[in-house]
């Protein structure tokens, strides 16, 4: 179907994914025939109503759930239903309550075989950027909601993988912290050519960050719109009041509302 060349250039391919949950009593169709391709270095955003299956799609991409139908290809390799090494950040932060912030964040480094000391200093370097300086030895229950989310994000970006799957990574952050982290994330991506598929409920955020926005319908989720965002990079904050930005915004809002 697709050229070999192009394929190799694509970090993640989802082909005709359908998924259903079996809640014991009833079967709930959640995703319907979703296809999606993410190029190397590309930043894609998923927008859609709550409960439409976005998180499920990310789990399928990470190989944590096997879809009823369809295939997942990671860097050209079929990986449907097999857990892969990807920078997956779940929607619930899933920080381990028995580990300090530092230990939680260092997990991916240790998993990759790094020595404890080195891992710890790597994490400590990044703490200020995430506004977590001074909290290295705090346990998750001693952190605020936004701090937990930042810790989870920090842990995720430390997973060495060309693909990041981020499930509402900034939902619990105030505008300023959010903006700072967005900038930092963009700079990291640029430097290391990582690809991102991320879920958000903020249209502004989606347009500002993404190269491509996918709009998902109500459950069972289908892709109702695939919108490339052709704004120049690097983007500055000012962009959100420019005409092209606002027209993207209007378009997406309309599409979202029409799904009601």
């Amino acid at each position: 179907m697709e050229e070999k060349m192009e394929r190799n250039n694509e970090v993640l391919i989802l082909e005709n994914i359908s998924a259903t949950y079996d809640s014991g009593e009833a079967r709930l169709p959640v995703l319907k025939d979703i296809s999606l391709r993410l190029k190397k270095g590309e930043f894609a955003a998923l927008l859609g109503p709550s409960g439409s299956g976005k998180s499920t799609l990310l789990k399928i991409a990470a190989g944590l759930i096997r879809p009823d139908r369809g295939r997942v290809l990671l860097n050209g390799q079929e990986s449907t239903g097999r857990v892969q090494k990807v920078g997956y950040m779940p929607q619930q932060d899933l920080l381990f309550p028995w580990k300090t912030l530092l230990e939680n964040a260092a997990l991916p480094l240790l998993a990759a075989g790094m020595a404890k000391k080195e891992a710890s200093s790597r994490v400590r370097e990044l703490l200020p950027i995430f506004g977590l300086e001074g909290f290295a030895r705090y346990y998750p229950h001693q952190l605020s909601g936004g701090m937990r989310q930042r810790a989870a994000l920090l842990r995720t970006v430390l997973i060495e993988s060309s693909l990041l799957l981020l499930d509402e990574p900034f939902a619990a952050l105030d505008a300023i912290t959010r903006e700072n982290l967005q900038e930092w994330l963009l700079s990291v991506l640029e430097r290391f050519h990582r690809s991102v598929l991320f879920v958000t409920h903020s249209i502004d955020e989606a347009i500002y960050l993404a190269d491509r926005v996918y709009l998902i319908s109500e459950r069972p989720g289908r892709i109702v719109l695939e919108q490339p965002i052709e704004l120049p990079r690097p983007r500055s904050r000012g962009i959100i009041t420019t005409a092209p930005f606002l027209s993207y915004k209007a378009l997406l809002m309309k599409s979202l509302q029409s799904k009601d």
Partner: protein
Amino acid sequence: MKKWANTAKRSLPGALAVLAVLLLWEALCRVADVAVSKLPPPSAVILSLYHNASLLAEHSRATLAAVAAGLSLSVLVALALAVFMDRHSWLKQALYPLLIISQTIPIIALAPLFLIWFGLGLTSKIVVVALVCFFPMAINLVEGLEQVDPETINLLKVMQAGPAMIFRSAQLPAVLPYFFSGLKIAATYSVMGAVIGEWLAARWGLGVFMLRSMRSYQTANTFAAILVVVVLSLLLFKLTELAAWLAMPWHRHKSVYPEE
């Protein structure tokens, strides 16, 4: 200093309760004029303890050796069994009935086989202690491992953490409360287990002392030996509590807010 004061304060109600029971018992013996041969008053027990101090110390040494070795062995066995049973469900299904069977057979009924297999020396006592002790830990570990949130394990799998790291980072900490609960039960049983082992066949040990004083109608001596068993068991229990406190630092800062 402060910590010690605290510990002392927390131990006070327990000490008082024990004291109250002892006083009640003493009073009962005196008022109801219970024959010493049936229930010696605490004062007689203390006196006997004093008279037999060096003999009891020697017997205790033998018993403690069996307890130390048997309890350590049981921890290892319980951990190994639980981990393997958790990892391979068929192994769990295969071994579970055998584990239960190992506990439902009264040891005394198998005493001769035990002695033939493990000899008349220390080994058989160690085996009895281990047999008595591993079970509460093994069951608690197996049950605890079933309660571990699969999401945390999935997250580690995404980081490509190996089984050893998954165990260390996610499973072990999550089951530690179960483990220590089981260890507390085991520690409580351990000294009694050694005593039973000594009843089966022995030259030395608190069990020997106890049996001999029982058979020569020196009930106060029997109770003195029981007292030693009780004190040793309580010490082991306290040690377990200390170990739990050290092993689970993340538990220390939680507390429910005062009533109403």
